């Protein structure tokens, strides 16, 4: 069937497991398409390891023609850091939800950022815990109803939405790449992810990309409302763009001296 039209899936997608298992209209598919295209563009399929978390990201455990490890909730980055330290030639991608990244795994995120670990972390911000049925996440918007904020997120008691990339940018050293994209701008998102992979490949440092995503199932939104929630509500709290690109100096960061402890 020589020239029959075929879906323009990224080459690294595993067609045998498609259609994938994400809900209709789930942002995960769009983000994984952007990731797949970035991997294709860089030609790194042979040396890329994909790690997914517990959360809806785990549904991608058989998504790619990549060696893949599905880990524990919040623990994907440490597993991949463990791999990267002994196999630096591999490109490791840590894919997780906002709960895994900013709640239970926050110490790993902070520490990998501080160490400037050579990993590319992609965090799917869907403003709640998708897989467990829609509880509050650190990213939940003020007033947003979730299963654990049935009367709306009360900022006074539970805080305001966490700004993940801003957090990473505050602690990551020069060489880090930090950005926030959105499924509402796929070309930009793919570009951010590709730059993030390149940052790792070129050994400059950590790459952290948050992707604003959609969870129509738990938001209970139709397509029009889904786009509105991402492009209006979420965008009001989570500005997209690049926060740190390698080469750029960092405020309040002293030079590269090595004073060390006094010698005797």
């Amino acid at each position, binding site marked *: 069937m020589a020239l*029959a039209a075929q879906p323009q899936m990224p080459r690294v997608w595993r067609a*045998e497991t498609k259609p994938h298992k994400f809900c209709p209209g789930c942002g995960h*598919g769009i983000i994984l398409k952007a990731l797949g295209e970035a991997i294709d563009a860089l030609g790194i399929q042979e040396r890329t390891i994909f790690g997914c978390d517990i959360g809806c990201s785990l549904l991608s455990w058989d998504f790619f023609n990549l060696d893949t490890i599905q880990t524990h909730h919040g623990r994907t980055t440490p597993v991949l850091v463990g791999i990267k330290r002994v196999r630096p030639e591999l490109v490791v991608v840590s894919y997780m939800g906002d709960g895994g990244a900013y709640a239970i795994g926050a110490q790993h995120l902070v520490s990998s950022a501080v160490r400037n670990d050579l990993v590319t972390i992609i965090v799917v911000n869907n403003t709640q815990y998708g897989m467990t049925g829609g509880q509050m996440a650190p990213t939940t918007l003020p007033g947003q109803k979730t299963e654990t904020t049935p009367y709306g997120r009360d900022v006074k008691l539970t805080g305001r939405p966490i700004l993940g990339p801003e957090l990473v940018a505050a602690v990551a050293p020069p060489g880090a790449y930090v950005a926030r994209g959105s499924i509402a701008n796929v070309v930009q998102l793919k570009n951010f992810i590709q730059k993030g992979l390149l940052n790792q490949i070129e050994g400059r440092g950590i790459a952290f990309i948050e992707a604003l995503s959609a969870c129509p199932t738990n938001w209970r939104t139709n397509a029009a409302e889904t786009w509105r929630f991402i492009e209006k509500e979420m965008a009001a709290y989570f500005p997209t763009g690049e926060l740190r690109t390698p080469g750029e100096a960092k405020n309040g960061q002293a030079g590269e001296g090595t004073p060390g402890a006094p010698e005797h």
Partner: protein
Amino acid sequence: MSVAFKAITTENGKGIFHLFPALCKGCGLCIEKCPVDTIGWAKQLGAFGTPVVEPGHGKPCIACKKCQLVCPDAAIWIERRDGKGRSDSGRQPE
């Protein structure tokens, strides 16, 4: 490649609209994003028993590929009728 998907192919305006019913989940994200509102629900049902989409419900397609871009399931492939559509990254027809 051991997997192949059947396309429903429709020519419309500047574009050739390939829709893969085995992939489309009927989420409607593409409908909302089409700048000329040409995408609408088709009669045909997709793999999951949902309607699939088709062009021809609005102004002619301008082959901007927005729909292809936002589809979470890679269920749309837009070719330009002027033949530039083959430059996409990703799987080529075999």
